[in-house]
């Protein structure tokens, strides 16, 4: 065997490490988009997540007017960050319902007392059943539900200030 051939494995390996390193540093689409977008909500009926608001059932959502369905939890930090934006949306007349994931009533109440309560109804999803059924993989996520109870749009991650106009637009589209 000639000497240079002994270097071939190392060179091939270096090529692999370069490629893998490059791919690791590249941002990936990390979000799982719901396959339910465009489809009707599955049937569910959740008990109230706190004393002051009624629970949430799928029948409450297809009422003729587009609304937001916000998936949140009191233990979720980005949910605190988006609370302000939800308040702004609610102040503009957007009807928002919430689903609290794996939460306790007293924690939900404390969370909403501290960060504001924009919700009309809040259902408690103790085992993430409804969350998974509508195709959400994490908290927070926000769905635009049209007047017929179909999922029109899915927003993954917290709602930042720059997302508010976009969400209003999506709501208007869903209403037309």
């Amino acid at each position: 065997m000639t000497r240079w051939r002994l270097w071939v494995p190392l060179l091939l390996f270096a090529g692999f490490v370069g490629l893998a390193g490059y791919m690791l540093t590249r941002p990936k689409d990390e979000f799982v988009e719901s396959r339910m977008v465009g489809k009707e909500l599955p049937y569910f009926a959740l008990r109230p997540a706190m004393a002051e608001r009624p629970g949430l059932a799928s029948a409450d959502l297809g009422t003729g007017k587009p609304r937001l369905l916000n998936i949140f939890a009191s233990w979720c930090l980005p949910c605190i960050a988006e609370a302000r934006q939800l308040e702004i949306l609610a102040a503009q007349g957007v009807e928002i319902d919430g689903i609290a994931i794996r939460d306790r009533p007293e924690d939900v109440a404390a969370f909403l007392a501290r960060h504001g309560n924009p919700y009309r109804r809040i259902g408690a999803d103790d085992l993430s059943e409804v969350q998974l059924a509508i195709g959400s993989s994490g908290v927070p996520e926000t769905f635009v539900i049209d007047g017929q109870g179909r999922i029109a749009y899915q927003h993954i991650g917290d709602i930042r200030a720059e997302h508010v106009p976009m969400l209003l637009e999506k709501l208007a589209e869903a209403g037309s």
Partner: protein
Amino acid sequence: MIAELGLAALWLAAALAALQLVCGALATHAGEGHDLALLTRPAAILQGGLAAFSFAMLVWVFAITDLSVKLVAANSHAMKPLVFKLAGAWGNHEGSMLLWVTVMALAGVLIAAVERRLPERTMQATLAAQGFVALGFYAFLLLSSNPFERLPIPAAEGMGLNPLLQDLGLAFHPPTLYFGYVGLSVAFSFAVGALVTRQVTPEFARAMRPWVLGAWVFLTLGITAGSYWAYYELGWGGWWFWDPVENASLMPWLAATALLHSAGVLAARDALRAWTIMLGVVAFSMSMLGTFLVRSGILTSVHAFAVDPERGSFILALLAIYIGGALLLFALRAGTVAEGERFAVASREGALVVNNVMLSAVLAIVLLGTLYPLLTEAFDVRVSVGPPYFNPVGAIFVVPMLLVMAVGPLLRWRQDSLGRVNREIALVAALILAALVLVSIVGEVSLLPLIGLSLAGGLAVASLLPLRGRTLRRVPLATWGMVAAHFGIAMALFGMASDSAFTKERLAALEPGQSAEAGPWRVTLDRVEPVAGPNWTALQASLSASYKGGEPIVLTPQARSFWAPPQQTTESALATRWNGQLYAVIGQEAGRGRWQIRLWWKPFVTWIWLGGMLVALGGVLALIGRVLADLKRRSVTRRAGARRAEARALIAEPAE
């Protein structure tokens, strides 16, 4: 307190791995008789003890469900059955890495305490290499995946009550593969040690071989079990999907198979020195590469919560250091390792070289197919590589390899002529040709299964030929192992080819009372009814299946719905006969009281896994044979030594 004890033991073990590395390296550098050399073995032994202690502490916190430990809170639950609590200790990233280093450290104990054949300098280098590899994994655990991390506030209840993961198969399948990977890491350390001291000798191959054999047995079992699990659990009737995770376990197996054979040549004939070293490095590289691909999430785009880019970078860094380092050492040193013995093309070595080249080619094909999506994704093209690539391209090399496998064991070492074994070759060739003609007359079979079926028959006979003309009681265990493993390959090949050639699939919409036929089976749907389990409800079909009009067997396939998390699974129902399996799955309701029933008659499909188990059994036989022979040789040398000492004592005593 328990968790802190475990963590402290882990830090101490890491420190000892560093000590093992430094002492081993200095002793190797200084040559024979360096004082530090005395520390290397005790360091390795103590390190093993500490790692085992640390792992035991982890199992303990899982057993008592200590919810102030983050890992327990995330992966366990007070209500879980105890066996799944214990299995939960390694059923996650951190715990499985700890299991990995523990097994590796215990392997180190075994080498340090038992291995006495190699020259001391090579041993020191080997232990240093082992310490170096272990150190990287300790660093990984301690710096980025600490299994003993505490929560600031203990969790009220654990998160891990996922019913789908409460499966005994899933609990014990990953550790099986791990034992295989770790065995290869030992082979890697041996290879690096021998490369450092340039002492690539038959003794080195004999010392390394049991580790390769053991690793290979575990990998074979792991792959076989994984394939069967996918077959009955996924409900698609397939048994291999060329999925990256499957490939990640297949690639080390291919490399280990090649290494096993080349180590055999080195041990018996002192040839293929550089090549064996190279394979030792490659085999472990493939297990680390597999771990990297699965853990970093670089190939399967799982969502962000499960994948940690930091972890991926860490494993990549370890990969670069160890594999890159070993390959660099190889490039610098392999040219100076004295060339081994020469041999003729028509000889046992020649056949084994062909086997090695072919196995390496298959390995390269699988590796390329697995990494190709990664390469194209760098240019923003998403592709998925599947069976249409792997099957035919792999077959180009597998078929000639199997032909050589039929003949190779019949050849003599060093020099032989094919003429000497022409009767055997003619027999095998005639069998293959006869099967080829027979199968193509009987039915329309596509090319690959046709080749597979005809090869399998010839191979099965050929694998028994090494036993001809020998007193069976005196055949060494290792030879029995080879015969069993080669026969197992023929069996598995037959199962695979038969499954793809003769499977009868039937999708029928049946009302209760109606029946459908699949191959020789007549299946009647008796009723569909709801049933409930501890955490699921299911629709269960009752089918009466009768083979060629015989006594009907009741099959109950289910479509299960789990509540938490909501998930649908299909529970297939199987009727196993010696000549195949009937595979039944219940599908959707088809309207007007009818149900979709999917039936497969898969002739000889079980032979795939029976063959796989036979291959593993062959490995076990060979391992036992080698170890026993080694022990015997040892006691003989010891006795001879004692006799010599006695004789010397007699001479030294002054005659009166």
